[in-house]
Every structure is written in structure tokens, then in C-alpha cells.
């Protein structure tokens, strides 16, 4: 996109020509003022006709293609890019709400300095001052610099950060955020490394599967790609009734997936992986299904006792036998490991235990995402939690000279308070946030240098996991930047100029020339074009790059049999003191909290609870009666590590021994909608500092809690209470008959 003239510029031009006319007086050839705007409209704009720009959604790490309708310099609607192979023109609610990142009323309008951390008194500074401050801080920090980014970072910016840290002798950037942590990115990659020798995220061809066993995967709400799996689910269900896909969801609390499942197994939290192993064992022992599957099952299935797992997990042994038979005899069965089973025990072994079922099935429809398709392209890789723990230790020991936090990572909100991140920050001499809005981490920052939102910024993204064919997304500004913000890539290049060690490593004049150089390394793609300019234009026009030969099928590499040992589930907190399991889940609208600042997301009803602006502690009906609480009663939930207060939502579809809590709210910053209008607990306050046995994941799924009444009540904002919407004419009798 070339230089475009925005609405404001037009007004300025208009004003300037009026002034010019007044000042020049008699020299001016004609006595009237030229009205510029609609005589010579800006390039690419016709009044009243929308211009569509292709770009990339950055609301989660998946990387869906979007097209944005721009009218008179304003972005007015985001839709899915119909050509994009990942989302095929569709978008999830978070993708739809991207405009409210751009037009959020609480965005920072320029760089600020905070003299006293946590004071919320921000003093506006110029970019020159900001860059001087940052340069001085980085020079002082040198090799003790740490960069922390979230997984939605553009490849070119991560690349620049990597070059900067390498030039200063500092460790490479840490990519860690709550979304990828709760989805189990690090452990899923490590499980693929264990089984297939490639540390990459798995991809599942659900659209062609006939039986899917989902072990707690929230594939319709968050997880690896909400929209892709949503599209795939449509195909999975679309086929004629005799071949309609059969979905089994193993989860202690029903989310969207369990609601849509043909069979919901309400198992005991933590027993997903043992159940997968029991199914593998039963396939091996029962001998049902094709001979090759049975022989693979005999080679792979561990020596577990299905009867014992049945009683420990609460899944009847007959159901396990039936599921083993269903899986072994299906034409294209799939087993999917979710985020929850990577939150305790040995996360890698547990994810691998589920993947082993796919190996037994023959591996059709299971893929390992290929790496970046060209030299020099960078894709973020989720850091193992062990690295985050060590980093916090180093911070506490005063070994970190500067911490740069980019994007929605927001560690002060996302990390369990028991880890002590905010305390450790006090030992870091310089903390810089690049988020366009002040979040909980920016509250403790010295400098906030707002980057542009993704609708105003350049970038590229390697789609991971991709489904059968590599894809590189293009991200381009669809509107002119709203405020005096600056692209972090440009800031880094400017800063590096004054640091001798970094200047040679970052010689580019601006981020766009760096980005174009990277993209030029891609071989000719499916959209053709001759010459660098045309290829670049097609890259922007279509919103992505794809190699010339068409899509390939998902096929996992050969796996070599090896023992996958899953430890018995163990829990943090004694059962006597803490009688309930805590089940933390990421809801479809708020996800890990980055939906909380957008009214469209936080003010729309959650599909399961119909709550708006609120999240609750979800307690099963009989348990709520036993505790003497009902809707809106505020309870105190205590774990060995912390406590939160939350109103009760009585949910039918959760185990009686489990308290379910959604992530996303409990903000003390992130703008007025998240911190003032919305209210709800942040369940991360109940999580301990520990990692799982493999060190890849946070141990967040094996917490025990107890519940106390506080005697207070709050009004709930439930959509199901709306007059007539429920229990009106369209009522329970209709639901029982037709739904």
C-alpha cells in the first residue's frame, strides 16, 4: 500500500488551501478556493464504496487471513479472507472484534514515562526522548537484556528482537503468554519431538475424520485454531447421516465441544492421559479392528490396567471397551490432546499418550506443521515454562538489566502471583512495555512506547500449525495510524543506531525495508507475478503466500515405538483441606484476557453461562445446594497458593467435585471496559509457581480448592434472564423435542 491520505489529512489540505488563498491575495490567479476532497479523491478511495485490504488477524496465534472494509479512511468491518487456506473466509468472534483493538478509547496516544512504577501517573514524552531513554537503558543492560513477547508477534519483529539480543550477547526473546500456555503449545511440540523427532505443533484433519476422541481440547473455542477447527467441524457434521462424524469429548466440565459431542465423558480431572492409555491397551488386548492397528497397538500400548484406570477416572470399563472398539474400527479415527492434560504431571508424556492413539490408527489425518518455508523467515516458538521460572529467578537476583515486554503477553496478569513476577520486577532497572494500551505489566513499567495495533502495522506470519501446505501471512496497515505511535521495529532500528554492538547487526533504515527483504526470499508462490515488486504486491493483495504446487495431505512422519510413561495424577493441596478440583478453562470470547478490553467480546453472552461482563465460579447444581449457595452468592475460593472471591453460577454441566472457572477477567488495567465495567476473578491467582515434571508447562490443572461462603451477593448479568428469551414461547418443551 502506498501513502494514503486519510480523512484528517484531507481536512488539513482543505484548510491549508483556504489559508493559501487568503494570504496570496492578488497573486492567486483565481479568487475562489479550490475544494479538493471529492474532485481529486485519494488513491484507492471512492466515496461510499468500500476498499478491502487483506491482512492477518492477531487476536490469537493461529494466523487467520482477514479482509478489512475501509470507507473514507475508517476501518468498518473485518471479515475472513475467502482465499485463505486456514479459515476459508470465516472468522471467530475474537477475529470479528479486532476493530475494537484499533478504536479502543483507552489506547495510549503516544510514548509515556512513569516516574514511579505502579503510580499510574504517566507523563507524555517525545519519541526522541523515548528512544534516547531506551538506548541508554539497553546500553547499560547489554547482555542482561531480556525481551518478552507474545505468540502473535510478527515474524519480522521477532527477527529484529533476536538480532538485537544476539548482538548484545543477551539470551534470545522469551515467547510466552497465557493463551499458548493454557493451550499447551510447548508440551504439544515437545510430544511431537518425542514421537516423530520434530518439535512442531500437531495438525489434525478433522474434516475427513469419522471418529474423534478429544481429550479436553477446546478446539471450538480457543486452542490451536478456533476458526480452522470450526470450519472443519462443519464438514465433520455435514456428511449424510450414515457417515456423520462421531465426536467424543473427555472433559470434567462441558464447554462448546462437550455440548456438541455425541458422547461426553465427564471424567475426573487429570485422568485424560491414563484413559487414552487404557484405550490403547484395550485395542491391543481386545484385538478388534484391522490387523495392522492391533499389531501397532501391541507394540505401543503401555502395560496399564484398564480396570484400575476405569475406577480412578470414573469412566465405566464398558464405555472404555466400547470407545476402544469404535476407535479401532473407524475408517479415519483421530485423537486430540487438549490443553488441560498439559497442565500437570508430565505434560509431554501425557500429550504423547494421546498422540500414540493416532500412531496406532495409522496416522492418517495427523500432521506435523512444516517449518518456515524460506530461509530467513522466523516463527515464534512458545517457551517452556521452565525458562520463564528461571527468568523470574534471574530477575529477582538482579541479573536482568532491562526487560522489554511486547504485545499481549502481559506476564503481570498471566503468571500465577505465587511465582512472584511483580516482586521480581522491582529488581529490574528498566522495564519497557510496547503494548498500545496500558495493561497490568505496563503498570509496573518505566516506559510505555505504544506499538501500532495490527490493523495499522506491517508484518508477516508463518502459519503454525499449517494444515498440509505452508502458508506465510502478510500483515499490512489498513488505516493510517490513529495516534502518535511508532512501530516497535522502527524503534529498535533507531535505537540500535546508537549502540555500537547493535548498529552493525541492524543496518536497515526502517522495518519495511527489512520486511520486504525477508519476503523477497520466498520462492514464487501460487499467485504468481514476475519481479519483486509484483510478487510483493500480490503478497499484500491476497494476504498470504503459498507455494505453487497445491495443498498436500496431512501425514505424520514415521514414529518409532518407545515407552510413554504417564504418572498417576497427583494434585496440589490435600484432599481433606481442599475437597474440590479446580478446572480452569479459556472461554471463546475472553480467551486469556485479551478479549476483556473489547465491549463486543466482554459484553456478549458467554455461550455456556450466558453471562456478560462477568465470569463466575461454576458449581454443579447438587453441590451448590449442599454448599447452600445459588446464583450470585459470592464465595471465596481458596487454594494452597491464594484465594479469589467470585459469584456463583450454578452450572448443570460440571462434575460435582469440580469448581470450574473461566480465565479472562479480574483486570486492574487494560482500559475502562476490562478494569471498571467487567468484574470477575482471575483464576491464575489460585495456581502455584510449579512447573510440570517435564518443565515445559505450568502446573495449572491439578489444583485443589475449597469454597467458603462470604454471605454477600451480587446481581448477575445473565442473558438467559432476559424476559421472553428463555422460558417464553420458545421454551423447554420445544428444546426437549427438537434440540
Amino acid at each position, binding site marked *: 500500500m502506498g501513502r494514503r491520505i486519510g480523512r484528517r489529512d484531507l481536512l488539513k489540505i482543505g484548510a491549508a488551501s483556504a489559508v493559501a488563498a487568503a494570504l496570496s491575495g492578488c497573486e492567486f490567479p483565481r479568487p475562489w478556493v479550490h475544494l479538493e476532497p471529492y474532485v481529486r479523491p485519494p488513491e484507492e478511495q471512492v466515496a*461510499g464504496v468500500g476498499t478491502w485490504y487483506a491482512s492477518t488477524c492477531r487476536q490469537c496465534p493461529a494466523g487467520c487471513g482477514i479482509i478489512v472494509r475501509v470507507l473514507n479512511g*475508517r*476501518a*468498518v*468491518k*473485518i*471479515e*475472513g479472507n475467502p482465499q485463505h487456506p486456514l479459515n476459508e*473466509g470465516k*472468522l*471467530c*468472534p475474537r*477475529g*470479528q*472484534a479486532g476493530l475494537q483493538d*484499533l478504536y479502543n478509547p483507552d489506547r495510549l496516544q503516544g510514548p509515556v514515562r512513569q516516574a514511579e512504577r505502579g503510580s499510574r501517573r504517566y507523563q507524555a514524552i517525545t519519541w526522541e526522548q523515548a528512544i534516547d531513554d531506551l538506548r541508554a537503558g539497553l546500553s547499560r543492560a547489554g547482555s542482561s537484556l531480556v525481551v518478552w513477547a507474545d505468540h502473535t508477534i510478527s515474524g519480522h519483529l521477532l527477527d529484529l528482537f533476536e538480532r538485537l539480543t544476539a548482538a548484545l550477547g543477551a539470551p534470545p526473546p522469551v515467547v510466552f503468554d497465557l493463551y499458548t500456555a493454557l493451550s499447551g503449545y510447548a508440551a504439544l511440540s515437545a510430544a511431537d519431538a518425542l514421537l516423530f523427532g520434530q518439535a512442531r505443533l500437531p495438525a489434525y484433519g478433522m474434516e475427513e475424520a469419522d*471418529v474423534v476422541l478429544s481429550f479436553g481440547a477446546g478446539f471450538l473455542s480457543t486452542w490451536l485454531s478456533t476458526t480452522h477447527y470450526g*470450519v472443519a*467441524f*462443519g464438514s465433520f*457434521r*455435514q456428511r449424510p*447421516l450414515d457417515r*456423520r*462424524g*462421531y465426536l467424543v469429548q473427555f472433559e470434567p466440565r*462441558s464447554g462448546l465441544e*462437550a*455440548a*456438541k459431542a*455425541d458422547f461426553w465423558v465427564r471424567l475426573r480431572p487429570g485422568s485424560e492421559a491414563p484413559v487414552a492409555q487404557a484405550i490403547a491397551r484395550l485395542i491391543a488386548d481386545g484385538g478388534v479392528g484391522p490387523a495392522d492397528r492391533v499389531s501397532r497397538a501391541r507394540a505401543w500400548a503401555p502395560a496399564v490396567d484398564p480396570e484400575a484406570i476405569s475406577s480412578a477416572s470414573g469412566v465405566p470399563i464398558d464405555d472404555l471397551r466400547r470407545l476402544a472398539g*469404535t476407535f479401532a*474400527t473407524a475408517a479415519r479415527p483421530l485423537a486430540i490432546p487438549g490443553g488441560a492434560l498439559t497442565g500437570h504431571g508430565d505434560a509431554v508424556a501425557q500429550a504423547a499418550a494421546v498422540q500414540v492413539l493416532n500412531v496406532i490408527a495409522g496416522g492418517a489425518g495427523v500432521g506435523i506443521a512444516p517449518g518456515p518455508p524460506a530461509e530467513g523467515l522466523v516463527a515464534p516458538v512458545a517457551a517452556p515454562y521452565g525458562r520463564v521460572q528461571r527468568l523470574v529467578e534471574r530477575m529477582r537476583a538482579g541479573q536482568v538489566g532491562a526487560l522489554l515486554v511486547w504485545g499481549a503477553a502481559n506476564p503481570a496478569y498471566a503468571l500465577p502471583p505465587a511465582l512472584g513476577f511483580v516482586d521480581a520486577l522491582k529488581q529490574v532497572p528498566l522495564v519497557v512495555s510496547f503494548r498500545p494500551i496500558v495493561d497490568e505489566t505496563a503498570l509496573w513499567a518505566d516506559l510505555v512506547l505504544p506499538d501500532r495495533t495490527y490493523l495499522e502495522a506491517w508484518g508477516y506470519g508463518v502459519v503454525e500449525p499449517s494444515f498440509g501446505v505452508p502458508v506465510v501471512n502478510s500483515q499490512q496497515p489498513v488505516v493510517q495510524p490513529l495516534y502518535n505511535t511508532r512501530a516497535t521495529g522502527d524503534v529498535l532500528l533507531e535505537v540500535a543506531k546508537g549502540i555500537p554492538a547493535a548498529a552493525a547487526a541492524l543496518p536497515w533504515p526502517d522495518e519495511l525495508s527489512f520486511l520486504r527483504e525477508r519476503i523477497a526470499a520466498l520462492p514464487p508462490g501460487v499467485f504468481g507475478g514476475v519481479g519483486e515488486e509484483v510478487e510483493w504486491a500480490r503478497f499484500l493483495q491476497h494476504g498470504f503466500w503459498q507455494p505453487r504446487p497445491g495443498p498436500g495431505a496431512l501425514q505424520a512422519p514415521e514414529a518409532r515405538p518407545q515407552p510413554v510413561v504417564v504418572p498417576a495424577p497427583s494434585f496440589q493441596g490435600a484432599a481433606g483441606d481442599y475437597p474440590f478440583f479446580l478446572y480452569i478453562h479459556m472461554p*471463546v*470470547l475472553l480467551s486469556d484476557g485479551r478479549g476483556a478490553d473489547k*465491549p*463486543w467480546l466482554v*459484553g*456478549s453472552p458467554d*455461550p*455456556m453461562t450466558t453471562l456478560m461482563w462477568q465470569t463466575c465460579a461454576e458449581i454443579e447444581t447438587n453441590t451448590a445446594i449442599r454448599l447452600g449457595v445459588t446464583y450470585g452468592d459470592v464465595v471465596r475460593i481458596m487454594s494452597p497458593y491464594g484465594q479469589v472471591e467470585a459469584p456463583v453460577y450454578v452450572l*448443570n*454441566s460440571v462434575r460435582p467435585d469440580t469448581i470450574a472457572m473461566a480465565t479472562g477477567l479480574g483486570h486492574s488495567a487494560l482500559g*475502562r471496559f476490562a478494569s471498571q*465495567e467487567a*468484574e470477575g476473578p482471575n483464576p491464575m491467582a489460585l495456581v502455584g509457581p510449579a512447573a510440570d515434571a517435564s518443565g515445559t508447562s505450568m502446573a495449572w490443572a491439578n489444583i485443589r480448592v475449597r469454597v467458603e461462603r462470604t454471605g454477600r451477593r451480587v446481581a448477575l448479568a445473565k*442473558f438467559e*434472564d*432476559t*424476559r421472553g*428469551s*428463555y422460558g*417464553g*414461547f*420458545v421454551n*423447554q418443551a*420445544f*428444546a426437549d423435542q*427438537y*434440540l
Partner: protein
Amino acid sequence: MADATQAEHKWTMVVDLDKCTGCQACVVACHAENNVPIRNKSEVQANRAQHWIRIERYWVGDPPARARFLPMLCQHCNRAPCEPVCPVYASVHSQREHLNLQVYNRCVGTRYCNNNCPYVVRYFNFYDPYFPAPLTEQLNPDVTVRTAGIMEKCTFCIQRINRAEQQARSEGRDLGPDEVIPACVQTCPPSALLFGDLWNPESRVAKALADNPRALRVLEHLGTEPAIYYLKGGKSYVRF
């Protein structure tokens, strides 16, 4: 009530309940397309939430009950109960598009239509819409922003119908079978929502409804003749 004979199209929506995942993408897309305000917490608690399309969640079966999702929006009834009760003809049936229209500048806010709608899909603006700047920039200029005192509801994205018709007319051709796509249908990841002209046998909705034993209309016994067909959830027949 409608005289259907003059209409050129029979705009119809099909909702496949087997595919709907309840994800709310349609809800957010509708807010974005139609400038529907988000009501704040106290307004929601006063039962004044406003979503032209909503996902109703029902519990079915014995405990542990299973959630079922029912997308509910204006049914664009052929014989709409909301129309004859409007004293100012703000709720009218369009002969050309065969839709239930709400004429905002006629509406005086009696709310009789809301009272008479068995689907409860009309939303009254009890408050002025509130878009703190620069959230005003997100507003779709093709759609009016309604003030307090006005009744509003789903329009089947009539601005998109008009835009597609104008486009086809300017190119001197007939409207294609699936050229009009409302915002909710456009975004729906599993394609649970389909939209089109039922009278065009080439359209997706006509194909989806042809001899489909799963098709039903909500509260059909009231004789409202809704333009939205629901496809009942299916079952898998898996060998055990």
C-alpha cells in the same frame, strides 16, 4: 400482511443446529455490521441486553444435562404478528424484498410489536447508544445508528441485499443465487448458517431444504410462516 406474489425474491435463512457450535461469531459480526450497541452491566441486569441475533442455550436430558444451542433472530415471518399492531406503520412488510422492515423514523416506541412477537427478537432502545470516541469510527456508515425510544431488530442485512442488487444492476445482470451474504452467515465458521433466495432453485438454501426431513420452523403452529428454517440435530450411527 404480505402479498407474496409481487416479490422478486424470497430471502430465507437455514440454520443447521447440528453444526452450530454456539461460538458467538455471528453475534459479534452482527454488532459490527449493524451498529448494534453493547449494553453495559446494569442495563443487562435490567434485562435490556441487545443482540439482533442471539444464541439461546437450553439444557436437555437428565442431569448431567447437555447444552443445546439455538440461534434466534428475527424470523421475517410472512404473516408477522408484529406488523398489524403498529399504529404508525413502522413495522411493515416490504413487498419487494419480502422482508419485515422496521422504519426507524416512523417508530414512536409503543413497543406493541415487541409485545406481539412470539420469538422476542425485537429490541427496544431504552437508552441512547454509547460509543465513546473513537469507537464511533467503527460504525458502519451504511446503517443508521438508532437513538433511544426506537425499536430495532434484524434486517437480514438489507444494506447488503441492496448493495448486491445495485452491483448486479450496474453490471447489467441478474443477482446470482448466493450473492447476498449477511454478516452472521459470512462469518459462521462451521457454515451452520446459510442465506439465499428460496425461489431460486440454484441457491444454497433451496438445495439445503429440498426434501430435507430435518427441516423445521420454530413455533410453526402459530401460523407466522417464518423465513428461517432450522435443521434439527442429527445422530451418528457408529458401529460398536
